[in-house]
């Protein structure tokens, strides 16, 4: 770096204003995108194995509007209802509002009909048995790693207001669209 470079860089107070202007614009755009539209998160733990691995980076879409309905099978980010300020989980939506979900003999029944769960290996056991009835605006979520996941089976269905958004793609260390999982 020669002296001329710095002279050129700092010449005139305008450099400051000009730089600040662009930095501010970039920050505002990033903040809006990050707050309302998209962000990334790091998977922490094994509760979504074999689909999401520990330490993977996932790109997710935020759902700013609580009225947005989720669909079955979506991988969602939720705030743990017991400590929404500090704990967030990544789980899969299994039961939708108004439905009755039953777990019996490792099978999941929705409104009395057994559901296909192609995203988990057949040897995964879903326990404990039980019946949950979702109120309006409540979702039943479970981790794919059924034997190692704290989810709605433990703390019950979660209200829509605790759902932050849904995962779109794993971006690191591999790339995979979530819909392909």
């Amino acid at each position, binding site marked *: 770096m020669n002296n001329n470079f710095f002279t050129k860089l700092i010449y*005139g*107070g305008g*450099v400051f204003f000009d730089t600040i202007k662009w930095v501010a614009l970039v*920050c505002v755009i990033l903040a809006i995108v990050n707050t309302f539209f998209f962000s990334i998160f790091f998977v922490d733990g094994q509760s979504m194995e074999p689909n999401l691995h520990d330490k993977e980076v996932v790109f997710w879409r935020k759902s700013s509007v609580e009225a947005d309905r989720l669909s079955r099978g979506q991988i969602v980010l939720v705030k743990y209802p017991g400590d929404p300020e500090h704990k967030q989980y990544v789980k899969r939506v299994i039961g939708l509002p108004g439905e009755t979900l039953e777990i019996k003999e490792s099978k999941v029944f929705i409104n009395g009909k057994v559901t296909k769960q192609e995203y988990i290996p057949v040897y995964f056991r879903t326990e404990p048995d039980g019946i949950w009835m979702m109120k309006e605006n409540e979702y039943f979520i479970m981790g794919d790693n059924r034997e190692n996941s704290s989810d709605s089976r433990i703390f019950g269905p979660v209200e829509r207001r605790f759902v932050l958004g849904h995962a779109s793609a794993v971006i690191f260390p591999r790339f995979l669209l979530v819909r392909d999982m």
Partner: protein
Amino acid sequence: MFFLVFFGVSFFAFNTVTSFKADTPISQTNIVYTPEYTSNIVINKDGTIIIDGQKMAQKIDLLADSDELRLPVIDKPATDIDLATFIVTLPKANAGEVTHEILGIHGVGEINSFVQDENTIIYQARNVSTYATVSIVAKLPKGTIAPSFSYWILSNIPNLGSIWLVLGLVLPIATFILMMLFILLRLQSQKVQAPKDETDALPMAIPPGVVGVLFHQKVGAREIAATLIDLACRGDILILDRSRGFGFAKNHLDKRLIGYEKILLSKIFKHNLVSDKEEIDRRINAHLYSKKISVLSLGISNLATRLGYFKTNPQTIYLRYKVIGSIVCVLGLAGFFFSLSQYANTSYLAFLWLGMVISTLVVSCMVQKIPVRTSLGQDNYNNWLAFKKYLESDKKIPYSPDNQEIFQRYLPYAIVLECEIKWAKRFSEHNFIMPDWFVSDKEGLGLEDFCLSLFPIVSYVSRSFAAIREPGFR
């Protein structure tokens, strides 16, 4: 670019680490757990929470249909707990109407909650491991607590949701409308009567740059271009139009040059007699901003102010607006980011601040349209409008040697009055004689060719110069 990318990526990465409002996590309090642990939780009428005599930062959340206590009471305790009991005392005897539940994860045995009496709910968790988190939930019917007005306001700010988004949109639009009204009012108070008659002589022998400031209330590319052509007409410089590029050459040195004209010449010529496009480009690109061009701009507008056309230098007035605008803009940005950090998931409030930022930008852009001329300035402005009317008249000017000279003499004024094309058209029936200050290696140039050669050269140089003026220079 490096800073932008670095800052952007850092910001993005920082924000992806979820940063929610920190209340008082139970793990940070000095609670000593015992195998038979009992805790008394009191909900006060104002919504504050007291755990074993210690007031928590967290308050009852005010929701649309109920007021909610959602509190993690055990988080990774140091020892295993056989039985944890939480006695919640309500501010009103309506425990039967309260929806209560206890949540436990990561190693909690049996959990249950029940109403003990009309004021008390008991939550119990058995066999709590050292990895466990136990939380209690109580949804209180509306009216159970009476929060203070300030807390009610603070709680409801994020709940207003898209109202803030609408306000964020309305604010800049309202600012724009208000600014338009303000400008219209100022224009009415400084009403300019459109001149009925045209004036075929210069209203006053003042430099074209100053006329430009009187007309535009700022120094822009047209004022610089007019000054360049004026210098050429007065014989100080030659404008060279070559097939391999344009250039400027020093002609004879006029000792009556005004200060800002000297500065403009020193920006074009360093020590050389001829400055070609490459040299001018080099000088334009030598600095991100040029102090010389800033001084040149200030010089022209100062002269217009000294002539009494403005009470205060218009650049200074606009700078004041811009400084205040910048401060408000920074405050708006601070509010924007504060809102995002405080209300992480319902941060529509941020749009209100963004609206404020955009409003300041609207003001900064429109401020130059506010008329700030004095009455003397208004009168002179009127006279120059009459002269403009003459310049842009459709009537062809008959040929005479004197008229041929008029074209050149008034050309700089036509440029600042934005009518150079119409002015040139008035001479279309003349046998055009090339001005001696325009040297071209093309032969037989007519008036149209002359304009097509001269205007791009002058426009390029003046626009480049105008763009490198320091923002905020005084």
